[in-house]
C-alpha cells in the first residue's frame, strides 16, 4: 500500500457491470513524507468515506478489486483506509 492525497472526484455516467455505486476519486500518490510523486491516478474507494484533501492509503493490483463489494471488477487501485496520523519518529534527522 502507498499513501495518497485525494485531489478530486470522478463521476462516470456509465460503468462496467459491478462498478455501479463505487465511488471514484482522483488521488495524487505521495512519498512517506507526503510530497507528491508521479502522476495522479483514479482510485475506487472501498471505505465510501474518503473525500477531497484527505490523506488515504490505497492498494493496487488484484487486491484493489478484492477490496470492493463486487470482487471481480476491472479496477487497478482502491483506497482501503483513511489516514488519521503518520508517525515517522526519525523524520527530523538521524538514522
Amino acid at each position: 500500500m502507498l499513501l495518497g492525497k485525494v485531489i478530486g472526484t470522478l463521476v462516470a455516467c456509465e460503468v462496467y457491470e459491478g462498478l455501479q455505486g463505487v465511488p471514484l476519486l482522483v488521488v495524487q500518490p505521495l512519498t512517506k513524507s507526503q510530497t507528491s510523486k508521479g502522476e495522479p491516478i483514479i482510485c475506487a474507494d472501498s471505505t465510501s468515506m474518503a473525500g477531497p484533501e484527505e490523506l488515504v492509503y490505497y492498494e493496487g493490483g488484484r487486491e484493489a478489486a478484492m477490496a470492493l463489494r463486487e470482487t471481480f471488477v476491472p479496477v487497478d487501485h482502491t483506497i482501503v483506509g483513511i489516514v488519521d496520523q503518520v508517525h515517522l519518529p526519525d523524520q527530523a534527522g538521524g538514522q
Partner: protein
Amino acid sequence: MFIGQVAGEIVSTINHPDYDNRRLLVIDRLDLEGSPTGGYLIAVAAVDAGVGQKVLVVDEGTGARQILGNAQAPIRSVVVGVIDSVDLSRG
C-alpha cells in the same frame, strides 16, 4: 519477499473491515547492504516490529492472505519477520 526497515506507523480508524485491528507499518525498502533504496510501502504487521528494526516483508497477495488467515482480505504486503543478520558470500 524483500528486506525493509520500519520507518514509522500509520494510524487509521476508517478503513476496509479486513484491516480492523491491524497494525500498519511504513517500511523503507533496503538493498542487500542495508541502505535505503528510496522506495517505501505500507505493510500489515504479522509480527511485532518496532521503528528502526530490519524486517522481512512479503509483497504477494495469496501468501499474505494465508498468513492472516483470511482468504478474502484485500491485503498484499505483510511484515513476516524481524531480521537479525544477512550474510552474503561474494567471490
